[in-house]
């Protein structure tokens, strides 16, 4: 049933308008980070003791890693539900995940106030298995290694190392299983992180069900990112869009969104805090914005005909990426209140570093897809 063609490098120049702009953003980020490491976090960020985590954590790490769930979401479809027809999506999604997670890992280091002590995270005598962050950190580190192994056949293939590739592929089933388990673990735990914050997180978000909310939205965002990237890559590289795959995948995604909405609204109702959503305040507004991002896609790509329209898939993808992002932003920053006297809005430097992180990912994605066999061969597609 695997009649799809083998992936090939896209080829073409590495220097163009997109890569130059991305390169400039990356250099700007490097300069700000240099300043940050010399003068401390306070010199470049608007962080305070009331808002000890800003966009470097919530956007670059929490949202960034959820955007990087495409590889895991697609692999689950292909290898667990044995839907081989989605196979052409595996490599591009895996590449985006690999880059996203590696950058999220780097983003953590930029934000750590005492980064030179980070080895304690992996030092058994320092480990605290009660800590949610300990689980998240160890699990993400392991997952980055697992994804590099998952992706290694691409690199080995390009350099003609057939024997090495054969050895890796022999055990690939286990790596794929591990590569599905690990994101399930840490994506849910990224949500559990705010449980210990207790009443400081508004009741619309503070719930013991948060691991389920984060896991479901991570999977949804994974599919949404694949829709977004497929449409973008097709238009940028002037390739035909793999609508025969994206249309059914969008249906799977909508099914998970429906499950999510039941869990989300059910949880808010059961805990008796639905009333908070009807108070005239920012939290209520943000709650509805977040919820709308998950509901509106049903009106955009609810029917089979609508799902055959790439523009509609693109917009629905963006909305779901936004919805998942809002869930994370709302719980960690907007619905987080440590008491009077504190407020947070990111500084220009913080925003530029976040922009630089996404630019790095775009830059690397272009370089790798142009030089390594990631995207499916164009001619074989119909």
């Amino acid at each position, binding site marked *: 049933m695997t009649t799809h063609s083998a992936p090939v490098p896209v080829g073409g120049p590495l220097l163009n308008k997109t890569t130059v702009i991305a390169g400039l953003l990356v250099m700007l980020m490097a300069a700000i980070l240099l300043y940050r490491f010399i003068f401390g976090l306070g010199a470049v960020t608007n962080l305070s003791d*009331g808002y000890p985590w800003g966009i470097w954590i919530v956007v670059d790490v929490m949202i960034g890693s959820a955007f990087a769930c495409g590889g895991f979401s697609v692999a689950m479809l292909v290898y*667990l539900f044995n839907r081989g027809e989605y196979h052409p999506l595996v490599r591009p999604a*895996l590449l985006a995940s690999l880059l996203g997670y590696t950058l999220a890992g780097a983003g953590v280091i930029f934000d750590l*106030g005492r980064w030179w*002590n980070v080895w304690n995270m992996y030092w058994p005598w320092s480990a605290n298995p009660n800590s949610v962050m300990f689980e998240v950190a160890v699990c993400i580190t392991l997952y980055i290694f697992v994804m590099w192994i998952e992706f290694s056949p691409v690199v080995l293939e390009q350099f003609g190392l057939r024997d090495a590739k054969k050895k890796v592929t022999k055990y690939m089933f286990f790596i794929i299983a591990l590569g599905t*388990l690990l994101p399930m673990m840490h994506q849910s735990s990224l949500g559990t992180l705010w449980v210990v914050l*207790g009443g400081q997180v508004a009741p619309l978000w503070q719930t013991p069900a948060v691991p389920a909310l984060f896991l479901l939205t991570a999977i949804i965002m994974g599919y949404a990112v694949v829709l977004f990237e497929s449409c973008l890559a097709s238009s940028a590289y002037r390739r035909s869009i793999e609508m025969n795959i994206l249309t059914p995948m969008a249906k799977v995604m909508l099914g998970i969104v429906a499950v999510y909405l039941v869990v989300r609204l059910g949880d808010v109702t059961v805990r008796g805090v639905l009333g908070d959503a009807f108070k005239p305040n920012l939290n209520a507004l943000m709650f509805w914005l977040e919820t709308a991002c998950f509901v509106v896609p049903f009106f955009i790509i609810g029917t089979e005909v609508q799902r055959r329209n790439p523009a509609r898939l693109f917009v629905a993808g963006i909305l779901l990426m936004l919805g998942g992002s809002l869930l994370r932003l709302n719980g960690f920053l907007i619905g987080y209140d*440590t008491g009077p006297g504190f407020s947070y809005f990111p500084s220009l430097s913080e925003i530029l570093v976040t922009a630089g992180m996404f630019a790095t990912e775009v830059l690397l994605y272009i370089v790798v897809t142009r030089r390594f066999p990631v995207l499916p061969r164009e001619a074989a597609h119909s």
Partner: protein
Amino acid sequence: MTTRRDFLKGALAGTAIVSAGATPVQARETHTRPPEGLGLLYDATLCVGCKACVAACKEANGNPPVFSTVDPLWDTPLDTNGHTFNIIKMYRNGTMETKDAEQNGYSFMKVSCMHCADPSCVSACPVSAMTKDPVTGVVGYDPGKCIGCRYCVAACPFGIPKYQFDDPFGRIGKCELCRHRHKDGHYSACAEVCPTGATLFGRTEDLLAEAKRRLALKPGTTTTYPRGRLRHAQEKALQGQPEGKGAMQRHGWRDEPDQSYEGPVGNYIQHVYGEKEYGGTQVLKLSAVNFEKVGMPNLPPNSSAATSETIQHSLYGGLIMPIAVLGALTFVAKRNVKPDDGEEG
């Protein structure tokens, strides 16, 4: 296509293993105070707002002054911060005529680490830099382990651990009950210097008994207030016996003369703050003004650390669930990843 059925079979098997493994996992109960735990009792009705405790804390912990005024003349922090572990805050209302009155009055409140029975910061810290001493219950900090992630800062319901954002090598700053001075027989500097005994050091169990004694008194009557350190029952039994060289060995603390004095009983709110909040704290507070109005959060009797750890351990306890799921996933993946499949991805 039989594969979907295979997947379901695998998933069912996995679920069976998971539920078998998950049943023994129990909810993690909120921890209680260690019996010999040390703490402070702050009585807002005795506090005169002199801030001798703030100055003594700075000195004892080697902290620099922090300025909030245009001219940096003397230490004027507005809140606890990376270099200020203890501060006296003020509640003001209307004309501010009467001390300890909610209407047209004012009151003081000491803000410093509560040394929770079940601290959120200790549960949050991924590298065990924040720990709770099993005997004294002091929540201590080890900068040699700390990675500066500031999860403790985010987690604490009292906003106590603070990070030194101004320093590229910044640490977390918080009250450690002057544990570095205990070996010399010194106790918390804030209590040592407090002229009215508004901040009293001692075993939390003794402090709690003392707090309840005060709540039971009739407002306006006269009673005796200890100062500095509250001697516990055992020590009191030894009173009148020759003290001297052996005193420190016997009690652990430096010998000092009894400094208790007579004073009027305050118009207390009938609540010992810290007795039950989050499973109890080792620092206790008494006030005549509503605790929320003087900045103490209204907390449930169960700690958020217990909720968080219950979730964590239900999912990951003994790694039973992850291993079971991994087994199921490997089983399914082995069937579905074709020999040539790896070639492609």
